[in-house]
């Protein structure tokens, strides 16, 4: 199983980019002409995805088909996300005064890296979008906001309807992330979030003072949301089923079915530290490691968020952690923080670890959507971690 999923995906993206470059001449056209070019490209990449699945089946039997389907679904999610931004771009253009200054929506949507400078120019339009979530704006200009909402709704829902009609749920999910994210961070910012840190720096210039920091936080959240969907799509349900059917102890190394970029991105979530929870009694009796010396950990930020959501209430903590009721009544919960988890061989779990239960899923995600990794906690010196009661 040595397929380079990341490389294949990049090839597909380049293929789409070239396809869109082919319609460079159409950029002076308006409305339907641009729509036609984009949707021609959409049809093209959908065809490519189908061809990829067929190729996988012909050359790799069931496994090849399963892997190819996984790649196809990943492309679908990315494609859906791009098209959603395009659709929102149409809405923005319809709203903007002097829309011509924004160049054309095709390039804005599909070559965001070339248009980051233009995103700055859309700041005023982004402000219009922000008004949708402002009670003051609704009170002072309800008519304008209604028109804004209508324009956006018309621009976005058509794509959903097409994806749903075709049963292409991976593309649907890509749209969903962008559109839901845009409710919080705005259309232009959603596009920049997709383009990564370069976009974030531009947004930093868009905002001012604390607002800029807030905007960046939102962009980071949006990026994470995108990664969540991509992660969910990185392994097809069929491949997940195959891996889960393999007895614990014989499951493959995640590097055999996850791309290097996926693994790198996943583990980067732990660069700010890794955390695990345990009861005080369990810690006192058995330490922080399982019997095979490993320990499952979550990103420190996710642990912080989980604790914040429980407000120190033991009953809420039990519920959030899925613990039996009453577990924490006379047995405090302790957080174990590992500031440098890479020193303890941080890795994506294989499912062979002692702590991998029947809820374990391939890909480093819990059923709740939380991220997980595994470390060799048994080899950590006491100076390599800290323990803190949390209630």
């Amino acid at each position, binding site marked *: 199983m040595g397929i380079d999923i990341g490389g294949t995906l990049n090839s597909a993206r380049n293929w789409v980019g070239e396809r869109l470059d082919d319609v460079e001449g159409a950029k002076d056209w308006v409305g339907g002409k641009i729509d036609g070019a984009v949707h021609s490209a959409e049809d093209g990449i959908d065809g490519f995805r189908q061809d990829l699945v067929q190729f996988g089946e012909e050359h790799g039997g069931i496994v090849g088909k399963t892997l190819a389907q996984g790649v196809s679904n990943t492309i679908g999610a990315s494609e859906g996300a791009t098209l959603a931004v395009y659709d929102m771009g149409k809405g923005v253009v319809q709203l903007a005064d002097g829309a011509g200054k924004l160049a054309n929506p095709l390039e804005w949507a599909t070559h965001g890296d070339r248009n980051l400078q233009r995103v700055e120019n859309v700041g005023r339009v982004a402000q219009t979008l922000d008004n949708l979530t402002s009670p003051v704006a609704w009170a002072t200009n309800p008519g304008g906001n209604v028109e804004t909402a209508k324009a956006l709704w018309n621009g976005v829902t058509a794509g959903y309807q097409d994806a749903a009609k075709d049963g292409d749920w991976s593309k649907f999910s890509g749209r969903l992330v962008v559109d839901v994210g845009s409710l919080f961070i705005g259309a232009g910012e959603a596009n920049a979030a997709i383009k990564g840190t370069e976009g974030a720096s531009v947004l930093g210039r868009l905002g001012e003072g604390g607002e800029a920091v807030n905007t960046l936080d939102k962009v980071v959240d949006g990026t994470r949301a995108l990664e969540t969907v991509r992660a969910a799509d990185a392994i097809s349900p069929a491949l997940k089923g195959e891996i889960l059917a393999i007895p614990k102890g014989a499951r493959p190394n995640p590097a055999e079915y996850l791309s290097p970029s996926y693994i790198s991105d996943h583990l980067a979530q732990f660069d700010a530290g890794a955390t*695990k*929870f*345990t*009861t005080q*009694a*369990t*810690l006192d*009796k*058995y330490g922080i490691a*399982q*019997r095979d010396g490993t320990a*499952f950990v*979550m990103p420190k930020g996710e642990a912080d968020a989980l604790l914040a959501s429980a407000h120190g209430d033991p009953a809420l903590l*039990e*519920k*959030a*952690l*899925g*613990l*039996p*009721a*009453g*577990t924490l009544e006379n*047995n405090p*919960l302790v957080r174990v923080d590992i500031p440098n988890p890479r020193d303890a061989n941080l890795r994506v779990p294989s499912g062979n670890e*002692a*702590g*991998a*239960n*029947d*809820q*374990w899923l391939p890909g480093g995600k*819990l059923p709740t959507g*939380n991220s*997980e990794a595994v470390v060799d906690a048994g080899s950590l010196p006491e100076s390599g971690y800290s323990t803190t009661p949390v209630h």
Partner: protein
Amino acid sequence: MLVSREFRFSLGEEEESGRYYVSIPVSNGLADYEEYYEIDRTAFERYRVDPAAALPFVDRCRNREADELLIVPPGSNRGTAL
């Protein structure tokens, strides 16, 4: 009270009810905690003197074959034995 790190289980007696138990560490991926299985006094004394004698029962607990003896019902995300 006895803790066997070697065999990864512990013996104890509930303060309020006086019930004897075997506990095993489990993890659900989010947290490590313990499950408690009720045993009688005879078993408690036997396991306390000879911890290895408890292993067949501990293995049954780990394999969820002694759930009728659980003192606290599992939560929404039941852990697996560590």
